[in-house]
């Protein structure tokens, strides 16, 4: 998703923000240029920029300056209960070991079904980069599960570690969700039936809010 932001630096405020789908990149660029030209013609000093993110919540987090006052930036962060911050560190991301085999990673449930958190799946960087491959739907290019019921497949050539991360889909949103990792088998003798050392029939990861 693309965001065209017209920002008044001196006031520290956004004057206008337009949203575009990824397919509207050219239109967003044209409108950015047109806005800049209009500002020159009318002698207005503004910062005009396009940002691109998976969703608005991510963009608002990585570019807080456009949306928050300097007086409240730290206060907003400070208001997060220390226990919640610690819990967030510990519980938003899970790592799970998988053995050689084929696995379904399925987004099972979310506490907030209206704005379910996004579940990111990646190979732990400490694993060999060639040890496993994420197989996505042909229309998707990111290993992100966006709602319960969505899934992707992991093909592991050797023992690997997956990172499963839950991210709120909006500011201060919930990260509570469960993700199920199940082995897929074809019934051959060589099929490996384990996920991790202690979970022969698959495991469920619980992410808390």
């Amino acid at each position, binding site marked *: 998703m693309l965001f065209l932001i017209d920002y008044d*630096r*001196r*006031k*520290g405020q956004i004057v206008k923000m337009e949203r575009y789908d990824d397919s509207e*990149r050219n239109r967003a*660029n044209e409108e*950015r*240029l047109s806005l*800049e*030209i209009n500002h*020159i*013609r009318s002698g207005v000093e*503004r*910062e*005009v*920029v*396009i*940002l*691109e*993110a*998976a969703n608005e919540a*991510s*963009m608002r*987090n*990585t*570019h*807080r*300056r456009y949306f*928050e*006052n*300097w*007086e409240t*930036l*730290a*206060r907003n*962060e*400070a208001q*997060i209960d*220390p*226990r919640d*911050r*610690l819990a*967030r*560190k510990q519980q*938003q*991301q899970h790592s799970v070991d998988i053995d050689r085999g084929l696995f379904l990673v399925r987004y099972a449930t979310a506490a907030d079904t209206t704005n379910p958190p*996004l579940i*990111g*799946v*990646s*190979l732990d*960087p*400490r694993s060999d*980069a060639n040890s496993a491959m994420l197989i996505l739907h042909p229309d998707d*290019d*990111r*290993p*992100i599960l966006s709602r319960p019921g969505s899934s992707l497949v992991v093909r592991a050539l050797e023992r690997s570690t997956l990172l499963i*991360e839950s*991210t709120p889909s909006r500011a201060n949103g919930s990260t509570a969700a469960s993700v199920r990792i199940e082995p897929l088998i074809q019934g051959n003798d060589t099929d490996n039936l384990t996920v991790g050392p202690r979970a022969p029939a698959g495991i469920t990861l619980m992410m808390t809010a």
Partner: protein
Amino acid sequence: MTTDLSKTQIDKLGNRLKSDELLEPDVQQLDQYRRTFAEPYEHVVGLIRSSLGLEPTGRPAKSTTAIREKLHRESIRLSQIQDIAGCRLVVENIEAQDRTVENLKAQFDDVTVVDRREKSSHGYRAVHLIVRFGGKPIEVQIRTTFQHLWAELSEKLADVVDPAIKYGGGPQGAQDLLAIGSEMISRRERQYVRFAELSLAQGQNISPEMEAEIAAIRATDEQLDADIMNGLTEMIEKLSTKVGT
């Protein structure tokens, strides 16, 4: 529209952009130049998303305002600016930052790492990677939550109080806030690194002193994070009264 300009044309444009008056044809030519970064940008950001499963916020083209400021501030030519296009990642802590940097380095053939954590730039601490693709540099910023909070605070103060704040100038109160804040965060992150080292050593033969150190850090971990936030909030409130915003 995306025909490459020669280096001489780009730098002449840069000189014109430095002047007080911003002209329409120059903005159009700058736009033409910025669009030549589109393909490398999309490749780099796309790979970060697809291969690493990360969700950076991309900025396909640096704003005209920011480019002009950079040209004014530094003795740099337009063709030398490395962050015309780029993206930003905010990760939970310094351990995740190290891991992300290593992972990104492994993805690209031509990467330069600019680590501003030990030697900050006017208090700004982060790791930047300059990935070269298709002859263009694409900047990837990796910040921890605390480094990010500091950077956004510094930028916002520069916007509304004094642009010099970002580079060590401006009102003394703001300078103090940022200097002390940066040092507090740096100290906290060094402690985090130490904790990670100790945790790694745990299970092996470690001394009772090290065990005690681990226990002490664990016991105060959440409070230390809160202390930074409260310290910053307190300083901000004092500064707010002085600045009168």
